[in-house]
């Protein structure tokens, strides 16, 4: 009986036939049309409805786009040109507005001879991000750095940057590229230094204050290493205390003295000259950078075994998530002075960044909590059985996996936050969407242009947010480990 297979199988083919193309009636555009557009009455109706919608949209918008004018000095002139070229009574887009006022949309009231500074800061941002975002692909990193360097220097030159900074930026970019090719881990040092550099380039002033602030992190790290042997809890507390002491007492004492010794100041730019996309990107990038670590801490606190820590985390998260961002922004602009010692008055952009960060962090915490909850329990138990302490287990085993699961959520929180930066217009900041459009429209020359500013800013927001969401898809694909 055991030989039954050998007796029943009469014939086994041992060569494959070459693949043949499908018969004519099984492929081709006609079949595609029949299957995808006209497969049934409902499908035909939907197709016709879709065509009608497209026809309606195109026929109402296309003439307006087709009659675009790029060169004019005012809306009246625009309309004159359109009437002269395409006949009386036609309407058209007047992109001359964007052409003339683009600087206001991009830089706000940032002094025009200093425009190269935000551009350099934006270029360096890619240097700082490259080792983090594209850590395992040298090819992509090479292209990102190459493009960032060329574009930054080119745009800086076009905006009239002096030779000295141009040389410096080019040199640093070259250095970054070399590091990325030969010692990628060293490029992370640039990432760490970027916050100080970015703030200094954007706001100007003395280089010493950002340096001293960054040194605070170094002090904290040194204290942590020194106390690590005794107890990890003591080390963390000691490090935080040392950093706070450094920023609170030593920094304010040190900076003026350093300034007197070596003067590293560049022209200071006040916060109220920030505007347009410069403002949005500044708030967005700093909010993103700060809300991720804060969100991780909040998520861990909410999953903690300690009831008190958990309770405070839940209260904070639920409060922030239950209140509209506008209310928090108004708190920043109206109430923060009540909560701080009398006489304190700090920068409105900083206040808004703090509020946006807190807001995004609460949402981020929930996203990351989902990721933590999705991890199988065995991962936690494995970490325990290896004898890892809490922080080591989180850092080496739990968080890398949890963050990987939550990437889509994290990126959509980022996108939401970046879009929400437009709300700062309601606390009097000069955002690209409403404040800029309103002020452009307030001038006599451009009174009555509604769609062009909206389309312009909308397109830029779309490109940035769409790019972010595509990047998250790329990241998901790359990190996918299971087959």
């Amino acid at each position, binding site marked *: 009986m055991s030989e039954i297979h050998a007796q029943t199988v009469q014939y086994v083919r041992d060569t494959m036939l070459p693949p043949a193309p499908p018969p004519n009636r099984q492929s081709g555009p006609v079949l595609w049309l029949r*299957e995808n*557009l006209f*497969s049934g009455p409902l*499908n035909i109706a939907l197709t016709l409805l879709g065509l009608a919608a497209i026809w309606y949209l195109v026929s109402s918008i296309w003439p307006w786009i087709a009659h675009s004018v790029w060169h004019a000095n005012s809306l009246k002139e625009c309309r004159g040109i359109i009437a002269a070229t395409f006949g009386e009574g036609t309407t058209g887009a007047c992109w001359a507005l964007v052409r003339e006022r683009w600087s206001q949309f991009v830089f706000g009231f940032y002094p025009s001879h200093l425009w190269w500074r935000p551009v350099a800061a934006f270029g360096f941002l890619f240097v700082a991000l490259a080792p983090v975002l594209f850590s395992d692909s040298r090819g992509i990193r090479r292209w990102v750095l190459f493009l960032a360097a060329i574009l930054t220097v080119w745009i800086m030159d076009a905006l009239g940057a002096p030779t000295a900074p141009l040389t410096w930026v080019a040199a640093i970019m070259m250095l970054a590229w070399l590091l990325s090719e030969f010692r990628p881990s060293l490029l992370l040092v640039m990432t760490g230094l970027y916050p100080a550099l970015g703030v200094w380039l954007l706001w100007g002033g003395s280089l010493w204050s950002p340096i001293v602030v960054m040194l605070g992190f170094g002090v904290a790290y040194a204290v942590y290493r020194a106390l690590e042997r005794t107890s990890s*809890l*003591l080390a963390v507390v000691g490090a935080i205390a040392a950093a706070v002491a450094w920023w609170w007492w030593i920094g304010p004492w040190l900076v003026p003295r350093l300034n007197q010794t070596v003067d590293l100041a560049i022209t200071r730019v006040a916060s109220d000259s920030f505007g347009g996309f410069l403002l949005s990107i500044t708030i967005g990038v700093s909010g993103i950078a700060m809300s991720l670590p804060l969100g991780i801490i909040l998520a861990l606190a909410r999953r903690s075994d300690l009831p008190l820590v958990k309770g405070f985390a839940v209260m904070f998260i639920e409060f922030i*998530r239950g209140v*509209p961002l506008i209310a928090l922004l108004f708190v920043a602009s109206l*109430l923060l002075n009540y909560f701080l010692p009398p006489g304190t008055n700090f920068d409105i952009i900083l206040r808004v960044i703090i509020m946006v960060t807190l807001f995004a962090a609460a949402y981020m915490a929930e996203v990351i909590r989902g990721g933590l909850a999705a991890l199988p329990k065995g991962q936690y138990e494995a970490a325990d059985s290896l004898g890892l302490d809490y922080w080591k287990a989180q850092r080496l085993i739990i968080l890398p996996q949890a963050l990987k699961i939550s990437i889509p959520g994290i990126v959509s929180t980022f996108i939401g936050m970046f879009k929400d930066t437009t709300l700062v217009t309601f606390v009097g900041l000069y955002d690209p969407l409403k404040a800029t459009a309103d002020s452009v429209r307030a001038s006599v020359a451009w009174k009555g242009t509604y769609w062009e500013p*909206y389309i312009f800013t909308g397109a830029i927001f779309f490109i940035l947010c769409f790019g972010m969401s595509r990047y998250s898809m790329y990241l998901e694909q790359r990190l996918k480990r299971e087959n």
Partner: protein
Amino acid sequence: MSDFAVPAHPPFRPMMLINDRRYRGYTIQVVVFILIMAAAWWLIGNTIENLSRLGKDFNFDFLWKRAGYDIPQVLIPYTADSSHMRAAVVGLLNTLLVAVLGCITATIIGVTAGVLRLSNNWLVARLMTIYVELFRNIPLLLWILVVYAVFTESLPAPRAYSGADPAAHMILFDSIALTNRYTAIPTLNLLHSHGSLNIGWGVTINWATIAYIVVLVLAILAHRALGRWARARQNLTGVRPRTWPISAALFVLPLVALWLYFGIEVVRPTLKGFNFAGGVNVHNALVALWLALSLYTGAFIAEIVRAGVLAVSKGQSEASYALGLSRRRTMSLVVLPQALRVIIPPLISQFLNLTKNSSLAIATGYMDLKATLGGTTLNQTGRELESMVLMMGIYLVLSLIISSAMNLFNARVRLRER
């Protein structure tokens, strides 16, 4: 005597507070508690000092003073002589109005777009993808401003409807007039009015409305009882009795009877002088905000619906077809219940988002809670702290209520695990 030494309880040493797992948790909690209390003490101390320096106190008396400003769109009676409190309630009701309307339309738009995006019609699926990506990647504020601009800039003025050969025409069988200031919609009028119920605070509800609500609730209850009876019958005999004619009659007959009893007629808006009268003129601030919120949130809901439907494995519907269930039954009995489980939690947060985003009404000038209590009242009385605390508290309570109500619903459709 055994030789085993009983492990003695080690004497307590202060370092154990940090190094011993049993005590470390308490130490951390005490430290956290002290730090947070210190921070709170510092903040509250600062606030008290700042308030006393400004010569202000912290009380809510201003809520009972005369408001002195007008609100164009009100749901309960309000005049400039009413109190700030009443203005705040009017604002809250306006917020709720736009939130409820927005949630309903956003769900309709979102479900339609999400299902169409999955349809095998290539053209429609692409169109829906464009809609979703456009609305998700552009700030809500821009959509609100654009829709508002469409309403205020592109629509005709009310007087364009006048004359023998008007420049503009009413839509939907001459019942709705879109103008650049308001949208005139028809209302219902009672021929045999039986008065109305005064529920205090100057708010009255028509008896006809109450009758309709009561009858609807009764009809729903009867419909459910009918369903239970049919199921019992089916379990007993194997044949499900035909219930839909009875159900239809349950809903239609009493409503028609009420219609005849109260003599309800539709009043269409008509042009009187320079403005429409007869119907209700809904301010464009509300219409634009509502449309923009619905379209924006609809794009997010579409993605949620798509993900929910895709999450139900294909084998489920195939198994259902193999059992001989029809397409409709498969959808309602097999696919939807499973998809809903995935859809509902994110849907709740979209409803919450919509409610909170309605505070962007500030961009169109719609008088919601933010604009009344947190806007005009705040500016007139100079009570920033009290107004903001009250406003944030109301928003907080609102979103907690929404999320707990929806979580109850979620608990009902959740997977019953053994």
